């Protein structure tokens, strides 16, 4: 297991170098943060026995397919917001929120939904690990992106 504290250090170190890179996508960002593919990160954390393996990955791939669309959307939205920052009008702010809020809700619902599916087809501990790692990675990405907005704003 990769030590959590190390994670945090890596993330804060990387946030300094992230500015202006909103054009890269979420999966690339994750890879640059952790040095491995998302699927590999997940498989390191979640402990599955042989009988759970197939069922879990089937559900996970299904989940990931849906999540990727939200991820792309979030990047697009934030890139446009970062590009416009400095000249944000109240109407732009309002438009941004009208897209950002439903996106966040949809992403969270997706995790909740697959948490339940995984729980019923594997076991509660596997499902909890899924919930934790997915929220952890989502929080990291959200923090990174907001960090980027603030850094851009201050420039």
């Amino acid at each position, binding site marked *: *297991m990769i030590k*959590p*504290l190390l*994670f*945090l250090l890596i993330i*804060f170190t990387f946030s300094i170098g992230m500015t202006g890179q909103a054009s890269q996508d979420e999966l690339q960002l994750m890879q640059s943060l952790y040095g491995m593919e998302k699927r590999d990160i997940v498989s390191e*954390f979640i*402990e599955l026995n042989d009988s759970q393996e197939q069922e879990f990955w089937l559900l996970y791939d299904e989940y990931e397919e849906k999540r990727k669309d939200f991820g792309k959307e979030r990047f697009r939205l934030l890139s446009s917001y970062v590009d416009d920052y400095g000249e*944000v009008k*109240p*109407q732009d*702010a*309002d438009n*941004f*929120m009208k897209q*950002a*809020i439903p996106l*966040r*809700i949809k992403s*969270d619902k997706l995790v*909740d939904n697959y*948490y339940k599916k995984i*729980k019923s087809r594997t*076991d*509660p*501990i596997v*499902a*909890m*690990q899924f*919930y*934790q*790692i997915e*929220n*952890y990675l989502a*929080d*990291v990405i*959200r*923090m990174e992106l*907001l*960090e980027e*907005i*603030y*850094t851009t704003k201050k420039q």
Partner: protein
Amino acid sequence: MKKITLLIAALLVFNISYSQDDATEEIQMMQELFGSEKKAIIEENVDLTGVNADSFWKLYGEYEKQRQEIGQAKLELLQKYTMKQGALTNQQATDLMAEAVPLRSAEDKLILNYTKRIGKATSALVSVQFYQIEHYISDGIRFSILNNIDFIQDKK
């Protein structure tokens, strides 16, 4: 943003050390410390120029009071499970999630509710800044809490 990074780092250290004695008192102390530090962060990141600052702070105070209650519940939950000896059972995982998931939703709903109210009382721009900074802080806290749970990795 450096301040927030520091605050989260402090919280991380706190999380590691608090699971000893007097945890409840420590949680309260942390909440108070965090609350006043947090106000300074908000002042720094929410631009109240040209809007009714009084109505912002009135709403913010209301919001913060409710957020602290959720924060308290989260820390108590975390404390309950990190202090358990040995590996988590399936039943414990189910019980923990039955409390953790609604807490997460409640916090998100609270931010959303006050984003709307602040938007009406001030401006759309202020409400975006409120939404972003509050989520930034709450994501940071969740992140440091999840770091400390160790992903219940030791079930082997």
